[in-house]
């Protein structure tokens, strides 16, 4: 699958596994896990610099922006104004016009506020941002996001950090069939089979953080996710057999005694 590249907003990406950088023990572990995952898109958050303890190292000392596509997010934003503000700050701090846009609707579920998401996306696209929207598994909202100019749609598999896996494969499948831009399944993956399942459904990539960072051995799980995403993609491209209720013998009847 050497020619099976994912191209988003003119950028060619090697890996179909995208990873977050939160919740790791330290930057050294973050770096090792990301290397093991083979991911070349990594998400980061934008927060206040610690001005009282300047001894703290910078994440980007560990993640070379030349090697990775750094994708800042607007995590933690619960309204349009905050999301737009953080996106602008991310661009000012950073490396590109890419923004993973999150407008959250509720603290308990961290489900997206899709009305706010569309509103914020419109503002940012007008300002030249490349908006990668974190959204619900709602095909209609997904289409609206494409219509206003999002180059990808990132529907959730399950609530962020829940590890519940693909909760609504049918909606995701509809999104993948209906929407003509790359679909990145974002959030809710628990283990390798979830990632493979997302890819088998036809996802163009999977983004995860907690499933790796929260595993007992994050580096081993990162590697497992790399293979799961790869296997799932291969299986999708290979085309699975149809499901049937009854058996079909694999050995010929002919030549039996």
């Amino acid at each position, binding site marked *: 699958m050497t020619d099976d590249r994912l191209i988003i907003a003119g950028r060619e990406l090697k890996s179909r596994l995208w990873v977050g950088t939160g919740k*790791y023990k330290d930057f050294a572990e973050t770096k090792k896990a990301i290397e093991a995952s083979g991911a070349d898109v990594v998400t980061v958050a934008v927060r206040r610099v610690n001005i009282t303890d*300047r001894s703290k190292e*910078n*994440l980007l000392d560990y993640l070379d922006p030349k090697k990775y596509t750094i994708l800042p997010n607007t995590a933690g934003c619960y309204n349009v104004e905050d999301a737009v503000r953080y996106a602008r700050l991310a*661009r000012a*701090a950073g490396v590109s016009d890419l923004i993973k846009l999150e407008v959250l609707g509720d603290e308990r579920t961290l489900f997206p506020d899709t009305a706010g998401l569309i509103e914020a996306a419109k503002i940012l696209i007008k300002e030249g941002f490349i908006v990668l929207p974190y959204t619900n598994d709602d095909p209609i909202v997904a289409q609206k996001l494409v219509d206003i100019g999002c180059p990808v749609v990132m529907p959730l598999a399950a609530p962020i950090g829940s590890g519940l896996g693909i909760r609504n494969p049918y909606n995701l499948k509809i999104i993948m069939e209906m929407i003509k831009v790359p679909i990145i399944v974002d959030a809710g993956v628990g283990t390798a089979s979830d990632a493979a399942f997302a890819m088998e459904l036809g996802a163009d990539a999977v983004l995860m953080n907690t499933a790796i960072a929260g595993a007992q051995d994050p580096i081993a799980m990162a590697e497992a996710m790399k293979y799961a995403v790869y296997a799932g993609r291969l299986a999708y491209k290979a085309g699975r057999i149809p499901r049937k209720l009854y058996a079909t013998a694999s050995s010929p009847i002919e030549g039996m005694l």
Partner: protein
Amino acid sequence: MAETIQIQVNGEQRGCGADATVGDLLRELAIKTERVAVELNLEILDRKDFDHQSLKQGDRVEILSFIGGGV
């Protein structure tokens, strides 16, 4: 004694020289200017203006950078 003013940096009050610029403040805090964003009274500053933008009494400065974060 040089005149000082009070400003707020990342939510904390601090004093700085009356003629200080945003660039001076970042150097005093030992913050490298690459990969930080600075917001002065809710307006994002262009990095090339850090050394030209002077600070005044009561200014609110936010200095942000990338940290680990995920989905």
